[in-house]
């Protein structure tokens, strides 16, 4: 069987990584979800075990995509390994800051100064690069810091 496939370029992989973080920080949930293949698996930075991406997406919706949460990230140099016409690996360091508002108004901030990411991209049948496997971790222990609660607005 012979197929004709568009080869993956380094620029295309870098663009996919940048889109991933743009959707993440802008809380574009549907576009963020679409970055993952249905069969994708993930090691989240704070998880002991690997899980299907769809589970991680449900958790991130609650934790990151809610109205009281904010995420900023800065990416380091992205290394790309093209393994075939449909498959490539992106690996890069990153810095990330997440602020979450918990039930009851309590706010916590998590700083990840030495994050590390491996994302394996595969081209889907529509030609889009999507994540097949992701491994995020931190080179240093990360502990959430409690922030002052936002005072409730005065009642009229």
């Amino acid at each position, binding site marked *: *069987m*012979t*197929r*004709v*496939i*568009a*080869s993956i*370029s380094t620029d*295309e992989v870098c*663009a996919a990584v940048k889109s991933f973080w743009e959707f993440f920080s802008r809380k574009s949930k549907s576009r963020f979800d679409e970055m993952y293949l249905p*069969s994708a*698996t993930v*090691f989240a930075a*704070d*998880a*002991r*075990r*690997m899980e299907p991406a769809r589970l991680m997406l449900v958790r991130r919706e609650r934790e990151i995509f809610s109205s009281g949460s904010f995420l900023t990230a800065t990416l*380091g140099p992205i*290394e790309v*390994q093209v*393994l*075939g*016409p*449909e*498959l490539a*690996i992106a*690996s*890069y*360091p990153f810095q990330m800051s997440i602020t979450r508002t918990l039930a009851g108004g309590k706010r916590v901030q998590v700083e990840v100064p*030495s994050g*590390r990411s*491996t994302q*394996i991209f*595969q081209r889907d049948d529509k*030609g889009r690069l999507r994540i*097949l*496997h992701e*491994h995020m*971790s*931190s*080179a240093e*222990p990360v502990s959430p810091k409690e922030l002052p609660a936002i005072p409730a607005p005065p009642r009229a």
Partner: protein
Amino acid sequence: MNRAATPRVLFCTGGMEKISTEEVRKSIERFWAILSGKTAAKLEDLYSPGAIVFTGKAKRSEAGRLTAVRRSRQLPGASSNSIAEVGAIEIQFAGPDVAIAAYTYSFHTQKTQSDGTKVQISTPFGRATQVFQRNEKGALLIVHEHLSAAAPPEKAAQ
């Protein structure tokens, strides 16, 4: 992106021996046997020349060959009681010549510090992603590795 300008290649499936689950498991077993000092096989032989590795605590990735050389210097002897326990291995096959293995592990080893004292180091909640690719000679080699720990390693003086 202008797809018309993208270089196109012909990709022929067939003619290449597919990677088996057993083959990947054996490569992972060999990797941990070397790291535990249970075999004299060379760690660098497991890595592709262009391999990239995130070790457990490094802030940046590095060439697999560098990692292998450094780890080989630090390998425990055969008489040490280093123990690696690998959890269930999930393998995703991405084409005929690439396999992505992901699993948890625990690793317990003894190290001698510069002052001569010995410490027991335990990584109870290790996580591993290893991407294997068959090379032109048919060998299954690691092209990418990401090891991390969900909790910091524990150190105890001996």
